[in-house]
């Protein structure tokens, strides 16, 4: 009896161990069967999707969101690389702009249906843009200029602006989406385009998990920080989308994404950095697609004497700009995977010319410092944050710190969490900051507005005001002649180069790892990729 009990209690843990080991063995040895047909028809994308907070097209403002919202909701117009200055038709086939530049009339493509089966009409266009405006969420400012929208007929819609805006077509071509939603379905789920939409609209919850646009794919579900699933839209007006299902899988690290891609677990890895791209060169299992983004990595310099006595002197700011080893950052840290425009308007847009670029000149930097009365240099706080549009922020900050040290400026690195750094920067209290910007839509105007116009996003943050730059921005916005517009933008950038409220560091390339079997991947400068072009 005793012997029996001994056997039981003494060996139970051991037999449990045996069972666990057996399970381990089986799990390790079992062959992986990939669900044949469905795997073939499913596109799996690995991406860091933790920025997604909503899929309601009237609320999305995050980077990742631009991919699914563009796949689900067609916009009136579109921009396709390589010629990103060219606006093309999409839902609208033809458009006219009144001579004074405030009234836009669009002819809609006939026979377009939403994924719900409802036909798309001018009424839906009106509903979509008004709901976007009245939800008063992050992207609402895009259509803040709209005075009224008139439904002329089922296929004709007229939009009246409060003031001329040469970049309005760019806004309707997306970036942050201005896509068209099915007003009937959205209203059935509590949606509204009324002026008090921000208080009474109840459709967001439903739109977070579903979509009703006319685009090639339909949102089927989203689990925060896990996955986002789309399916083919059976009613799509264009060519039949190639994949039955598209899954965005949340994978934070590029290294892990690369592993998964190599094993065939995923088809596309979206967060490759230059190091990874260099490492997989020649790997037969991974094709690297690259494209220049319209993102900017730059430094903001606060010009207010209350924030920094030294930086309030223009010569000191110029000295900093001359001290930086731009080529070292691009060739060394970015492995050559970046370019550099002279000012804050990205390459490829109107009026941008690399011949204007500033070059490193250490002696000039030292001379300027001496002239300003700081021959021995000074100490300055340099804020940066991780998550800087796929670039190695910490490495860039450390490099700049050592470049500045070479001319005698002692930068103390101040790493903050992105959101915290932003909150300080937005309240105009950062001294010197490494920051980034990604476009809402493609046109020089939003850049001029954000970086050069008095009261613009960045000038406000660095306490900088320049009346000439402001005037030029407003003139360029109204100017319909591209040549004259380009000249205005060149002048604006020159003012920035002289005043140095910000220093453009680089415009990074984007790398995406793609399985060799996947065709049609083209990097889009704003919404990253058009899913409808992809096939296996």
């Amino acid at each position, binding site marked *: 009896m005793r012997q029996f009990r001994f056997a039981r209690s003494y060996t139970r843990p051991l037999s449990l161990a045996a069972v666990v080991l057996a399970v381990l063995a089986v799990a390790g040895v079992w062959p992986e069967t990939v669900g044949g047909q469905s795997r073939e028809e499913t596109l799996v994308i690995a991406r860091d999707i933790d920025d997604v907070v909503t899929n309601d097209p009237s609320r999305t403002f995050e980077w990742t969101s631009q991919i699914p919202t563009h796949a689900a909701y067609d916009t009136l117009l579109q921009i396709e690389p390589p010629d990103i200055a060219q606006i093309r038709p999409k839902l609208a086939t033809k458009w006219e702009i009144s001579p004074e530049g405030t009234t836009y009339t669009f002819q809609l493509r006939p026979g377009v249906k939403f994924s719900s089966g409802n036909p798309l009409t001018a009424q839906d266009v009106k509903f979509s843009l008004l709901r976007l405006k009245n939800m008063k969420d992050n992207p609402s400012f895009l259509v803040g200029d709209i005075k009224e929208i008139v439904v002329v007929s089922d296929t004709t819609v007229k939009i009246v602006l409060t003031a001329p805006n040469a970049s309005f077509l760019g806004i309707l071509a997306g970036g942050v989406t201005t896509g068209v939603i099915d007003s009937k379905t959205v209203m059935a789920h509590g949606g509204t385009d009324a002026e008090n939409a921000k208080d009474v609209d109840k459709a967001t919850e439903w739109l977070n998990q579903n979509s009703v646009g006319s685009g090639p794919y339909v949102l089927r579900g989203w689990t925060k920080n896990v996955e986002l699933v789309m399916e083919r839209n059976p009613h799509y007006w264009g060519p039949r989308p190639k994949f039955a299902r598209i899954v965005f899988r949340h994978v934070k690290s590029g290294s892990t994404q690369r592993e998964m891609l190599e094993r065939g677990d995923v088809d596309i890895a979206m967060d490759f950095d230059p190091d990874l791209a260099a490492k997989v060169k020649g790997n037969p299992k991974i094709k690297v697609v690259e494209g220049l983004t319209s993102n900017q990595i730059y430094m903001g310099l606060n010009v207010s004497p209350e924030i920094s006595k030294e930086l309030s002197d223009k010569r000191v700011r110029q000295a900093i700009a001359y001290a930086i080893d731009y080529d070292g950052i691009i060739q060394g840290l970015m492995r050559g995977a970046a370019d550099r425009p002279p000012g804050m308007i990205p390459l490829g847009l109107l009026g941008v010319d690399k011949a204007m670029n500033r070059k490193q000149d250490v002696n000039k930097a030292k001379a300027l410092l001496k002239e300003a009365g700081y021959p021995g240099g000074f100490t300055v706080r340099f804020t940066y944050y991780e998550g800087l549009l796929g670039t190695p922020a*910490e490495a860039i900050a450390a490099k700049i710190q050592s470049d500045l040290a070479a001319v005698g400026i002692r930068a103390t690195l101040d790493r903050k969490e992105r959101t915290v750094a932003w909150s300080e920067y937005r309240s105009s209290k950062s001294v010197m900051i490494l920051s980034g910007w990604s476009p809402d839509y493609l046109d020089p105007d939003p850049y001029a507005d954000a970086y050069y116009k008095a009261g613009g996003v960045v000038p406000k943050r660095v306490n900088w005001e320049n009346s000439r730059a402001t005037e030029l921005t407003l003139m360029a916005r109204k100017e319909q002649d591209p040549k004259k517009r380009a000249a205005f933008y060149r002048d604006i950038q020159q003012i920035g180069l002289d005043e140095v409220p910000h220093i453009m560091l680089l415009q990074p390339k984007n790398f995406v790892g793609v399985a060799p079997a996947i065709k049609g991947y083209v990097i889009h400068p704003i919404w990253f990729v058009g899913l409808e072009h992809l096939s296996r």
Partner: protein
Amino acid sequence: MAGGAHPIAETAPVGVSVAVLQPRRRRANQALIIGAFIVGTWSVVALAAPLLAPRTPLALDVMKRLEPPSSTHPMGTDEVGRDILSRIFHGARITIPTAVGVILVASVSGCAVGAVAGYAGGRLDEVLMRVVDVVLAFPPILLAMAITAALGPGLRHAMLAIVLVSWPEFSRLMRGQVLSVKHNDYVIAAQALGVPARRVLWAHVLPNAFPPVLVKATLDIGNAIILTAALSFIGLGAIPPEPEWGAMIAAGQAKFEYWWVATFPGLAILSVVLGFNFLGDGLQDLLNPRLRRD
């Protein structure tokens, strides 16, 4: 056994023969020697880092990034071309004083609270122990994360957070010591003879409480090192480019195919924590064979 003069002899378990104690004592010494050797070596490294390190911890070279270990860089270079060996040596200057300082503050303040609670008893004791319970209810890393997140990242805030999560166990330990002495016959007898309770307690609590507190503190230094590194790993502790080991591992996480970036700082943490754990373990056996931690 004469009085309380010799705490070790006094507390030796009755049932354990000298023969059993002997090998244990020897092993304790072994653990103590190994621990002292590791901790001593790291202390020397920390003190002499500027002399020992081949380069300064911040010297970068963007054209020599992520180079594998070689004769010029025995532990390779990191993502901006800094020498990892030099950074590890200099990192010891951050890690060791930080952890020792944190535990010093936590143990002294924790013991003070525990002593007051045990001595005063009654409602004050009840309240203090409730506070201790509440703090102990949080997993240390979570509470420390919440505190550093709220105060803002940085080594100083991380240290404060670790003090705040580490003191309560010292309070419990100290309170137990005070209570056990308080009810001893000789204390009651001394009180009956008119000796002030306070003096009796000091005379008996201190020598009795010192060994377990010292052991716990030594072991907790190891925990504090890991916790600091963990906070830095998450991004809430030391701020780059400071060569803090946890932050260095975090840099390696993003690029794990460059194995040397994360491996060596991790080995540094492992060895120094192991050193303190051996030291604590050895001290425990040496000072008080009965109150073994396990």
